[in-house]
């Protein structure tokens, strides 16, 4: 450790973002870089723990604590502190295929479990990850590294989200011939169309895809397995298949007025927006505009936030975000101690932007939507919600209970449903005949193999809706198992 007292000597530097009122004028990335000295000091805040919780990726209380891909955080923090960026990059790249993505989009469970955060603000791990990755690309350290030897084994990866890409990169590194199938027109899955450009610039996704292509990965776009190509054909033509189709079935809100016009699934809204942006800088109009609308986003997660951010850039007239859970406390609750994921109140970028415009956080907590009210054109115009309290049910689980007499009606021209996802879409899975688990995700054994021999699954498709970083981890795990499967029990990959 370079600086034993770093955490005492330096304060945590807030993440440098462009000012909200400036950044909502465009779709460019909202992060600003940081001076090198600042970054090094931030690295110096790391205590190089004997037991670095940040490195572990354990589930405590159902939430990730520490880094799911087991980034060697203390090691690269120290190297950053010493100004050894290239070595830092080597250590970072050894566990994480796409730090340039996670450095931007990860909610950073590492920071939640950072030991400094027991009684001080956590080390800026995510900021440093992004900085190391950006520096590596800028310095030209990231070059295609095709495998020295090819095994001649053919592998198909279905879906090009973070799980599929990570698995493809790993399998290719092991020398297998990898083809990635993507039903969309662009590679990246959630990275491409799920996350808006200001959070993850699509140029970065393209850059990574090009690197992988240069290393020998083949990408096929616009082909949906199970539709354009029969699933069984893949099983026949490839020695192993990996399913990384995500958990794309959105949760719906079956209440009165749901069929009114102006109510959309969040992903449809975000997808169309990014596609139009990339195709035409939004000039082609092929997207849902929130301009001058009263927007209501239902759901307080990351997707909800992305809807808020996108709506702000559309110049919506007003914005309300509804969340069924109560407002989290500012500090950790007693039953949510460190190193668990801190369920505390945070102002994410979208809310921050709304607050900059209207002076307050757009979120309303502890409410449940009861009905949508339309106008004569059967277009939604209002929304009625009611306050809820959380009470323990007979099964011992907490559930929402309406509080009578608390109904409120708000204006709503555009409603975006961002209440999470229920699981994978089924057609391809049905064709393959893979077994599903009780939650409707693809069942796999510990090696990530499905009930069909040679067919593996990873990412949200088997895990259910989760974080990009879990998807990368799953992709790596699946790749290792598949390598073992293809190489008679031996593997050259690490999970």
């Amino acid at each position: 450790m370079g600086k034993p007292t770093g955490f005492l000597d330096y304060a945590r530097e807030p993440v440098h973002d462009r000012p909200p009122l400036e950044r909502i004028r465009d779709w460019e990335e909202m992060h600003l870089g940081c001076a090198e000295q600042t970054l090094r000091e931030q690295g110096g805040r790391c205590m190089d723990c004997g037991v670095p919780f940040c490195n572990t990726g354990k589930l405590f209380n159902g939430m990730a604590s520490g880094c799911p891909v087991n980034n060697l955080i203390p090691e690269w923090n120290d190297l950053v502190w010493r100004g050894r960026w290239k070595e830092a990059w080597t250590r970072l790249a050894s566990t994480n295929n796409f730090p340039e993505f996670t450095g931007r989009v990860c909610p950073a469970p590492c920071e939640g479990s950072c030991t400094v955060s027991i009684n001080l603000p956590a080390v800026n791990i995510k900021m440093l990850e992004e900085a190391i990755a950006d520096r590596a690309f800028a310095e030209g350290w990231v070059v295609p590294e095709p495998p020295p030897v090819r095994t001649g084994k053919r592998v198909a990866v279905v879906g090009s989200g973070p799980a599929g890409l990570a698995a493809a990169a790993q399998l290719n590194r092991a020398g297998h011939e990898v083809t990635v199938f993507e039903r969309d027109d662009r590679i990246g899955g959630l990275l491409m169309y799920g996350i808006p450009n200001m959070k993850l610039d699509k140029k970065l996704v393209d850059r990574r895809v090009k690197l992988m292509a240069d290393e020998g990965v083949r990408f096929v776009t616009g082909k949906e397995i199970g539709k354009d190509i029969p699933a069984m054909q893949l099983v026949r033509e490839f020695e192993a298949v990996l399913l990384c189709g995500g958990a794309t079935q959105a949760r719906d809100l079956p209440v009165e007025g749901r069929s009114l016009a102006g109510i959309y699934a969040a992903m449809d809204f975000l997808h169309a927006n990014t596609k139009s942006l990339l195709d035409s800088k939004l000039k082609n109009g092929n997207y849902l505009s929130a301009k001058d609308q009263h927007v209501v986003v239902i759901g307080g997660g990351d997707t909800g936030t992305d809807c808020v951010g996108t709506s702000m850039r559309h110049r919506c007239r007003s914005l309300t975000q509804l969340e069924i859970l109560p407002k989290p406390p500012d500090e950790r609750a007693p039953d949510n101690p460190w190193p668990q994921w801190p369920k505390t109140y945070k102002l994410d970028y979208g809310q921050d932007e709304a607050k900059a415009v209207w002076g307050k956080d757009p979120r309303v907590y502890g409410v449940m939507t009861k009905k949508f009210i339309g106008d004569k054109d059967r277009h939604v115009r209002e929304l009625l919600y009611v306050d809820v309290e959380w009470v323990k049910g007979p099964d011992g689980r907490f559930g929402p209970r309406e509080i009578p007499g608390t109904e409120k009606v708000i204006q709503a021209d555009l409603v975006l449903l961002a209440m999470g996802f229920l699981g994978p879409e089924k057609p391809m899975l049905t064709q393959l005949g893979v077994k599903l688990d009780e939650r409707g995700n693809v069942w796999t054994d510990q090696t990530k193999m499905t009930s069909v021999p040679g067919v593996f699954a990873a990412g949200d498709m088997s895990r259910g809706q989760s974080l990009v970083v879990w998807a990368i981890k799953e992709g790596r795990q699946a790749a290792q198992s598949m390598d073992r499967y293809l190489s008679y029990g031996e593997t050259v990959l690490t999970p």
Partner: protein
Amino acid sequence: MAATGLPPAQGLYDPKTEHDSCGFGFVADIKGRPSHDIVLKSLEVLKNLEHRGATGAEKNTGDGAGILLQTPHAFFAQECQKLGIKLPAPGRYGVGMVFLPDSEVGQNAINGLFEETVRAEGQHLLGWREVPTGDAALGPTAKASQPVIRQVFIGRGDDVADEAAFERKLYVIRRLLEKKVSRSAIPGRSSFYVASLSYKTIVYKGMFNANQLRRFYLDLNQPSVVSAIAMVHQRFSTNTFPSWARAHPYRYISHNGEINTLRGNINWMHARQAMMSSKLFGKDLLKILTVIDTSGSDSAMFDNVLELLHLAGRELPHAMMMMVPEPWSRDDNMSPERKAFYEFHSCLMEPWDGPASIAFTDGIRVGAVLDRNGLRPARYYVTRDDLVVMASEAGVLDIPPEQVVRKGRLQPGRIFLVDTSLQRIVDDDELKDRYAREAPYGEWLKKSMLQMSTLPRPSRPPLPERESLLKRQQVFGYTFEEVKLLITPMATTGNEAVGSMGTDTPLAVLSDRPRPLFDYFKQLFAQVTNPAVDAIREEIIMASDTTIGPEANLLEPGPESCRQLGLPTPILTNDELAKIRRLDGRPEFSGLRAVKLPTLYNPKGDGAALRSALEDLRWKVSECLAEGFNVIVLSDRGHDADNAPIPSLLAVSSVQHHLIREGKRTQCSLIVESGEPREVHHFALLIGYGASAVNPYLAFETVHDLVAQELVPGTPAEAEKKYLKGVVKGLVKVISKMGISTIQSYHGAQVFEAVGLSQDFVDEYFTWTSSRVGGIGIDVVAHEARMRHERGFPPKRPVVASSLPAGGEYQYRAGGEFHLTNPETIHKLQYACRTNSYKVFQEYTALIDDQSKQLCTLRGLMDFRHATHPVRIEEVEPVESIVKRFKTGAMSYGSISKEAHETLAIAMNRIGGKSNTGEGGEDPARYQNEQNGDSKNSGIKQVASGRFGVTSYYLVNARELQIKIAQGAKPGEGGQLPGAKVYPWIATVRHATPGVGLISPPPHHDIYSIEDIAELIHDLKNANRDARVSVKLVSELGVGTIAAGVAKAHADTVLISGYDGGTGASPLTSIKHAGIPWELGLAETHQVLVMNDLRSRIRVEVDGQLKSGRDVVIGALLGAEEFGFSTGPLIALGCIMMRACHLNTCPVGIATQDPKLRAKFPGDPQQVVNFMRFVAQEVREYMAELGFRTFDEMVGRSERIEMRRAVDHWKARNLDFSRILFKPTVPKHYGRTCSIAQDHALEKTLDSTTLLALARPALDERKPVRATLPIRNTNRVVGVQTGSEVTRRYGPAGLPDDTIRFHFKGSAGQSFGAFIPKGMTLVLEGDSNDYIGKGLSGGRIIVFPPEKAGFVPEENIIVGNVAFYGATGGEAFIRGVAGERFCVRNSGIDAVVEGVGDHACEYMTGGRVVVLGPAGRNFAAGMSGGVAYVLDGDGKFESRCNLSMVGLDRKVEEAELTLVKRMIERHAELTGSALASRLLSRWEDTARRFVRIMPHDYRRMLEAQAKMRAKGLPPEEAEMAAFLENARDEARVSGN
């Protein structure tokens, strides 16, 4: 007659681990006039040394006593006449003292052998004499094993040229007989023993205590038994097994101490036999081989070798100088001749290293030698009538003061000799210079001995290829962590890295990962029976130089004996290795000829290939020797895709033992050129198993790469130099832990224990190494090597690995090595204790205990044999009573914060357990209860080597006093609290200065030997009669034997710590590689205590990563009654295993003194209470299942454990726990748990019998008391009980000055006036033994010789070694010279003395010492505080002062001189010192000659404080401000 000797190895017991020590003495008439009076006097000496010996469970069975005399011819002539034997003239016959079996068949058979052998050797057997014995009231054990004792008389044959030749012949006869009998089937042959067989000396000895000797051997009472020389010895052994033969004296020596390098000495001696020839012995030489009888003790083996060297033509003192050389390589004041003598002889033989005072005699000369570090006491008197009395103590013989002309002590490395033929004492210098000039050693060296520095420079060695570095690192199993944590710090600072907390990763044999073979070996270390050495502060005695090249004939040395190459260190740079490679046998290379042999094998061939590669290698080595090569370089440089390196340790040890077996070992030297060794432990092993030197080429390349990456500053050459320095320093530290001071004697000494290697494997390649749980063999070793090789050279698909694997051995890493304390267990434990949830606690223990999937500890492989009839849990002893057996570990106030320290104390007091102060003292304010009834007073007060804050008041407030001998994380090492951590509040409690670093020495300077610990236990018991005294040991091979010794030394409790226990700061090497798991140490301890019938007298405690109820139950079943926890309670309080304790940056306020961080301390006593109660609850649940109602029933029931069946782990499946679970067969009445209180004999002390009564008025009414009493050396710890009574009643303030004043006349025993408080003055008119004023706590001690003494006081020794050790306050005035280590670790007394030995003021942290006469070497080593003033008589003081921490001032300020003058005036007044009066009478001249010795740090802090006060700050704030200013100066924060 019962079986005699030590029992065979069984369970974990190994007779090789036995130790003994003792008191010895001799009386001699300088003029060589034999008299019976000398015999009587020596027996009187023996009686007065009795307390240095021991008895076992039986009071009247001593460990052994004996006497060696000149053959009393007149007596024997008369006795033989009665038997019809006609004795020839003296010198024409020899007498043998023979122990025989009690069966007549056996006796006759042996008689027959005698007849036959004596005849065959051309001598005449004159006859036998039954030695008359009396009823000496021997104890049953001694009696049962008593041999039949007879004397044999052998007449000199006609063709024997002279007496010397006759003596040799007698030796040959004895050796032949010893060999014949031991190989025979004679019944009772194990009793056969020849105590002596000589024409000039005879030995009477046996299993006695001192008083029994003359009552048993009636001869000794005969007036005609006369001798001019009589040597006596009283033994203290670590066992109670009967052994008549192991009593001293041996044929030439009596020994007090221990040979630490014994294994190596035996190996080398064995090896060099093949090269021996002797004109004097001629063909007879073969008859005496092998020289060493390995069934003997270390002393006996020493005697064997000494005997050979002497009889083969060297005078006895010469042979002594060879075997126990004084430190010479760093001594600039030594004459070139003497240096050459030692250097020459170092080519012949390595030192027999260890603490020793050895008395020796050949019947004409008698003398004694002290080891190089002076670790044993030896005092002598010379009288007007030419009598010399030398003994382990002064005052062992009553001699009127006016008769004494000289009182002296043996000094480190010196020889004291009385030559009765010359009729005078021969002075050390004269003696050594004579031998040094006997041969032209210097010329021989110049002619034959090469030095590395003068060898021709090689052409540049091949440059490494950067690109392949990573690949090669992978082949040798490098990890990122090793490079970062081990190599980088060494290359940056030249020091080994420090870590904290213990180790919680799996043993190598339980790990899923391929571990280097090095990891299967654990370092042994010195504890109790011998001291570790302080390699840093006592550097003058250490030596890292070594030589390579073949050895010549030991017995007839000549110029060719030193045809060797001297190396300054055993680590070779690439350049140096290249130089060696060029040695081609030419004369200018003294015939040295090097050859390189590859140590590679085909990894695909697995174990078979490795085995045959080793065979091949051995064969090639033999071939090379035959071809005349004498330097063998074993190299793995040539490894590639098809050739994997043989583990370097396996390669070297395999060759080593091959050559030993072939008898060719000394014909060559082995050098290892390997990419594998990188950390200190690796180098230690390679050297310990036979490598003379090691070239770690890949470590060097790694260092260069780190420089290239800018992760290490400087040039590659500088970094490499620092790395080398760090390795050598670490190496010297490793050997010093074992009490060894020279690399040369560590070479091949094999001071390691294997854990997890199979017996076959060890026998073949690591012969004589102990490996007690079995484990892997060559197949798995090969598999592990292959796994590493495949990382570098993947067999199928090369994958671009861009960096090394993380590792995870030292710091947790996901996917790295498993840790018991990991994010999940930490979280669950904290959550459970915070919320008082037993359910969550059980989730935590499930993770800890379930090692079915992930092995980590030996106990993880144990299962319980459940009872067929479990008991209901309600019937089991309650939680409340179980927790009373629980303790928290010794964590000093200083290593952890006030908040953490007090929280632990409160918690343990709430539940009736005990917390432990650790070694940093304790704030007396904590002895008062809190308002709410809580108490912060720690139940256990530790007494460690630093003795910080060990005052009388501290001691009387303890429930248990713990002597910390060793600590699991760093056994054999001391500690250091850097100045930046000595905050004002820490300094106050430790009686030190804020901002000034504090050193805890590796050894207790009052425990160098087993009888010393008996003394300290006795001291502490006197200082607080209500407290139990416990001794803390660390698990290692032989710890059971040591525990038995500790039990015999009357400890109430012995604590066995696992190697894995925590630490605030310790070198990483020690955390991982020293000591063994507690399962082994505890089981061994219990077994050995039971075998010796000592278990019932001592409680056994265990600690070391105890984490769950299951751990406790296993501990109990293996024999423990009490349990210590440290990491667990700390985690409960919020510790998150940062492992940054040594950095003072603990983010949760536990291991830090920084007020900002302390404010973050989240702990509450209740969390610890919860932890302890949870553990106890789990214990109860297991007890119910096992069917035990009370805890005591469970202790030692190892039959209720079984090794888990069907372990399918690839390594662990080879383990075998039968020796751990072994139960020795012993008589029924032998206890298995502690049931009998130790007899401390407190009622027999002078205090109990006399002083307490005299002091009554002072104790009750503060009235002054005065008394004058006689005293002698058997009166030990005088004044201590009285002092403790004063403290008990009057607290730290004590009584008004001089309230109690006792005046003693005579020689005081050890620990005179220890710990005495304010208000007590002890006047001693006479002299004193060691440890006077130990821990002085405010009292005053005055010592002066009687007025009519026949010697000059300031030229003679008056107080012994280690005076005022750890004294915290008071005054001392000593008229005369003190021994070694005067005022060691003094932290507050003012003392005046008229001369001191070596190492005075060592580790001193406070107080004022005035020395009015000469001071010995290494003055002020490790001194960090206080001031000394030395009168520099010869102007050479500076050369004897250790200047690494102190500055010398020849100009002393007036104000200070006034203070010094006042002290001298008081000295003159109180002791009547003539010297003081003389000095005062010409004060101006005196004042000019004073040198002031002041530590740099101390001076800087005092100046800083003065500066702050000058700024107007009040004293306390000034102190803090000065401290903070100092702490900010990072340059000051120095490491070791």
